């Protein structure tokens, strides 16, 4: 089954209002999903289509645009040997989105890293605290308005 047909098959099973659009680039499909429905969509993909392996969870900062933070999930289906990318936006200030730790335990550290690097709050995460940087670090370094060499000049030099 080629990628277009397979995407259509998935789309027909997903709730219509949940998926905003579909992008395809270099043979990889991205579903752009309403942030309120992200848990439903991921659960459906996991249980019904066999995307049981959450490869990666990350975020992208689109600074001048609103909403600013895009959260990206990469899923892999072992049975069909297929990759799918699900994207959504974390809205609000601070940016908030539901946690998927209930679906995959592996999301725990991924979400902590996103919180550490972007300051995205994952609603329902059991233990949301900084993971790579220390407690008390000022700012979230992977945001686009954070300088590469850090803000605290004294400790940098």
């Amino acid at each position, binding site marked *: 089954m080629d990628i277009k047909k397979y995407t259509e098959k998935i789309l027909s099973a997903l709730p219509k209002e949940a998926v905003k659009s579909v992008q395809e*680039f*270099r043979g*990889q499909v*991205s579903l752009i999903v309403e942030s309120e429905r992200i848990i439903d969509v991921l659960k459906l993909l996991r249980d019904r289509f066999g995307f*049981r*392996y*959450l*490869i*990666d969870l*990350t975020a*992208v*900062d689109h600074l001048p645009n609103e909403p600013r933070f895009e959260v*990206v999930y*990469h899923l892999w289906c*072992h049975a069909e*040997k297929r*990759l799918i*990318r699900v994207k959504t936006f974390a809205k609000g200030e601070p940016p908030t989105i539901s946690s998927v730790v209930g679906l*995959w*335990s*592996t999301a*725990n*550290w*991924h979400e902590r*890293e996103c919180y550490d*690097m972007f300051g995205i709050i994952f609603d329902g995460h059991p233990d949301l605290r*900084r*993971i*790579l*940087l*220390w407690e008390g670090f000022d700012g979230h*370094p*992977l945001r686009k308005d*954070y300088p*590469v060499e850090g803000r605290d000049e004294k400790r940098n030099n």
Partner: protein
Amino acid sequence: MRKEIIKLNVGPQHPSTHGVLRLLVELEGEVVVSCDPDIGYLHRGIEKLMENRTYHRSIPLTERVDYLAGAANSLGYILAVERLLGIEEIPPRARYIRVIVAELTRIASHLFWLATHGHDLGAMTPLFYALRDREVIMDFFEKWAGKRLFPNMFRVGGVAKDFPDGMEQEIRKFAEELPEKMKDYETLLTKNPIWINRTKGVGVLSIDEVLDWGLSGPMARGSGLDFDIRKVDPYLGYDEFDFVVPLGKNGDTYDRYLIRLEEMRQSCRIILQALDRMPKGDIMIDDYKVAFPPKEKVVNGEYLIPHYLLVVKGFKTPKGEVFHHTEAPKGELAFYIVSDGSEHPYRVKIRTPSFVNLQVISKLAKGRLLSDLIALIGTIDIVLADVDR
């Protein structure tokens, strides 16, 4: 009898944590009640640095992500960039060089794992044997690239340098001899009662747990999950090679040990097949907008100007996003690159195998003895730069 929970700090400076891992362990006697890894002691901000560099200048950074398998990491990055650019074919000789170097790196990484894992569990001799064989690979890299750990020779569209004269024969000799030499390790460890006692039944994972925790590489295959990206999503023409993906039955530390040994043998097979099929010819595509022109021609203006522009400004990529995963020695290594059409990547996410695999340790260590914790750190095969990036 009074029961008390002791809080113990293992690391960040500890000989068995393979670097700067810190584990906050709560003990009741010898039994681990909870184990909370504290990572980030080697967080160097590679993802942020890559956003501010051209695509080519990021290659040395990616090699330093997993410093035991430098070439495997830059390979993953290069393949992701090539996918972003839409380069599908590179000259066959370059492709085989990449395969050979990637597999040599896998062997080197596994040998170092064997050395340190054995050393942590009290077997000193494998360290010297494994490092003896690893030095041969380091010599290959030094001869080819001038550097031991990080060859830094993969470029977008090919490789920077061909193998020097006579190296193909040396690699062939190494790949033929290594399975014989590995019998030394087997006699030292495989049937050693101490080794069996310390590894069998330690760190058992079922397939459901593997899927739940997102494990990959030997951690997943030890539990019997048939997941090797070289087979399921082939890149670099891995589907043309004849090799077996070893699978475990019990999902414990001992099975993962056997799997890694078998993977080294299979890597030798791949290297020998690649050497047999390797043709002579170009090692770089001739699209000088993205690939470097050959060095000896750069004196000529026709080649000098594209070379200069490529070094100073870099190349532009189409707007879009790609995800490319490869089978690194430690598991699934993936690069997710978002491009906004400029010379710099807008965002690079490095999905490293160690980061994901390490978090299962808090589950595995619970209820085990403290000495098992050291076996667990070894079996997950972490590299702290790979965890922290």
